[in-house]
């Protein structure tokens, strides 16, 4: 089924026409259409979301199934492998900028807009004429104290434990990588399993923490800018942890099938990079959102 370039010493594999991109498009499209309808309370929106997820799952199995199959049958040259690596690298870079947006917004809100409202900086006149009751401080729910008073999550409670969890998951992952490099499959599988389990524990702790914050602490999305930035940053991070854990789980499954070899294990590395990226973002979160 290959129409790969021939005759050359190191042919580059060009895949056959493939249905998966269009399925992917349909999946994303119906997800977003569904989201647009359902946040506006139109009933069939949630149906579309379900369809989108089903298509998405189907697409992932199909597309990556093809890739795995092509890879296993030895169609990929080192150059193809290199394309995948570089592609993943730039994808993670763009994700980094996505998070940078939120960190940047946090900076702007803490150090610029809240300061202005509190009477320092260029728009200090605001304080003179509108927000004279407001004292610049962090955390804050803003001049109108939107969402009512709230208490903070204890930095050295769940967040600190979660930091430890994520950091050690980075270690177990590296340990698994060593296993792979030394062709020690047992170590690979053990390491990966531990990593995925740690990831799952992290998510569960995070969900519990959210529940606690919403209930006991009255810290909600509506709690002014503090609540907004807190949930935005931690929420998107949590979402990325889930995605990363799914990737690692898939890699675990493939390891069990014995797919990876010492030199050919792009999927493992991609998932690992992603996981480390998620790790690093968490460290930023821990310091800037929980701690400072």
């Amino acid at each position: 089924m290959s129409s790969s370039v021939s005759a050359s010493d190191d042919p580059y594999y060009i895949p056959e026409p493939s249905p998966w991109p269009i399925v992917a498009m349909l999946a994303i499209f119906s997800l977003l259409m569904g989201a647009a309808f359902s946040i506006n309370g139109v009933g069939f929106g949630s149906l579309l979301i379900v369809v989108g997820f089903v298509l998405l799952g189907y697409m992932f199995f199909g597309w990556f199934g093809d890739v795995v199959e092509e890879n296993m049958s030895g169609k990929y040259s080192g150059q193809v492998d290199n394309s995948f690596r570089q592609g993943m690298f730039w994808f993670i870079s763009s994700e980094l900028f996505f998070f940078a947006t939120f960190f940047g917004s946090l900076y702007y809100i803490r150090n610029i807009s809240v300061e202005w409202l509190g009477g320092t900086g260029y728009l200090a006149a605001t304080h003179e004429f509108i927000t004279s009751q407001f004292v610049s401080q962090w955390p804050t729910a803003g001049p109108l104290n939107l969402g009512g008073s709230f208490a903070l999550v204890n930095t050295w409670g769940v967040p600190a434990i979660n930091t430890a969890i994520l950091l050690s998951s980075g270690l177990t992952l590296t340990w698994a990588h060593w296993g792979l490099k030394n062709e020690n499959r047992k170590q690979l599988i053990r390491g990966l399993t531990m990593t995925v389990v740690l990831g799952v524990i992290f998510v569960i702790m995070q969900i519990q923490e959210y529940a606690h914050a919403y209930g006991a602490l009255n810290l909600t999305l509506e709690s002014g800018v503090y609540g907004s930035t807190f949930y935005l940053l931690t929420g998107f991070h949590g979402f990325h942890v889930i995605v990363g854990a799914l990737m690692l789980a898939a890699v675990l499954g493939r390891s069990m099938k014995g797919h990876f070899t010492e030199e050919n294990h792009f999927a493992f590395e991609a998932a690992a990079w992603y996981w480390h990226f998620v790790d690093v973002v968490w460290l930023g979160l821990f310091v800037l959102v929980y701690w400072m």
Partner: protein
Amino acid sequence: MSSIESRYDDLHHQSEPHEHDHGPIKGWRRWVYSTNHKDIGTMYLMFSLTMLFLGGLSAMVIRAELMFPGIQLLEPDLYNNIVTNHALIMIFGAVMPAAAGLANWMIPMMIGAPDMALPRMNNLSFWILPAAATMLILSFVVPFFPGGGSQINTGWTLYPPLSIKVGMSMDFLIFAIHLLGISSVLASINIIVTIFNMRAPGMKMSQMPMFVWTWLVTAFLLILVVPVLAGGVTMLLFDRHFGTSFFDAAGGGDPVLFQHLFWFFGHPEVYVLLLPSIGVLSMVIPTFSRKPLFGYMSLVGSMIFLGTLGMVVWAHHQYTIGMSYGAVNYFMIGTILISIPVGLMKFNFIATMWRGSLSFETPMLFAISIVIMFVFGGLTGVMLAVIPADMQYHDSMFVVAHFHYVLVPGAVLALFAGVFYWLPKWTGNMYNERLGKLFFWTNIIGFNMTFFVQHFLGLAGMPRRIIDYSVQFTEFNVISSVGALIFGLSHLILLYIVIDTIRGKNREKATAQVWEGAKNNGLEWDLSSPPPYHSWTKAPKLDENAKYAGA
């Protein structure tokens, strides 16, 4: 200097299709399932042409409404919605896909690669576009249905708090922007990887054609700034539906934060629109000057400088919103400094023509007019960058005149030049040169008539984004609208030329080299016209010291 033929003695047979090179599969699957860079490039270009007509049609409606004072055709909200859609369709639907289409067609051919690095992802980045366009158009249509809420009356900048008050059509728009962003990021990743990893053995970065360089910088810009826009509109979505207060002073936020996020994306975005066109010009001008590109390395350098500087001057769109003296001063100086790299680019083009042997085929006519008109647009840009003066210009028709003078020549017309330049290569048929010239002249006369007078409107005090204006502005608006009609109609000639050339009846056949001066100017001229379905099934062997940019 050795000619490129002699360097590739063994290349000739490659131009003929050989047995490995089986053609495309038949029927709709060829397009929908495609993994071929040429087919995907063609789809991008077709999509872009459609969107150009759609965006242009809305521009015609805008100009028709603005022809006379008073409200004739539209309701105010509908007017603003059309302006919003006009901008988004033109920028995300027409210009960016056209540039991506050229990239798909030309980059693998220019660097001697068999295809893009990630062919399936390439198909995905294209096919997301029609989905995004659907959502964009839906955002326009939804308010006409009962329960559809109000129209998007915010302009393409989507500033809150206005955008928070809009009805559900805004959510369609936000998700459309997400889709467009995914598409651009995936396409950019693909282009970067292709350029880094797929160059023919022996081709150094410093030997790449300039068009490839421009796209490399463009792709980096996109990867860095599109996620910021995605993040910004996501926060908007949260403010609209989930009770957050990022852009609400009552909760400690600031509406201006959105503007920072938007323009952190928005300003690099204008260079995203500009750079591929600079790339096209750096291919066209040497060809028709019969002379190597002047200052290859300085062009590369200025482009990287431009990209970097372009990332840190965003707030020149927000001078009137209140920033400290230090901040505005910084943004002003940074913005003015951009004239250095851009000036160097324009200088290099002029120096390429200097002591050349010029001939004036349609692509060259466009290139020459672009150099002049873009310099004009750029100079008004520098005027806008000067804060005290921008306190007057801002949000007036002067700004509208500025950005159409940079966008239309700097992006759209240069893409036209590229299409005329490569159309014979793509189709194997020469286009009709006489019609091409007719198109050129009607086009630039219409264009200048439309937008030149808008400078005066702005100075005299006419704000932008208004459906109705006071009588003192009538004369110039009439001129502008008549010009727009000429300009719009001229595009029908373009449409005819393109269809005529593709069908190829009674058209002269193009040679492989097509243009007399194209000889040393890119590897694509070594392939037959039209090129085989898979371009470089065998990597060309390259001369270590040659420049495939023609320098």
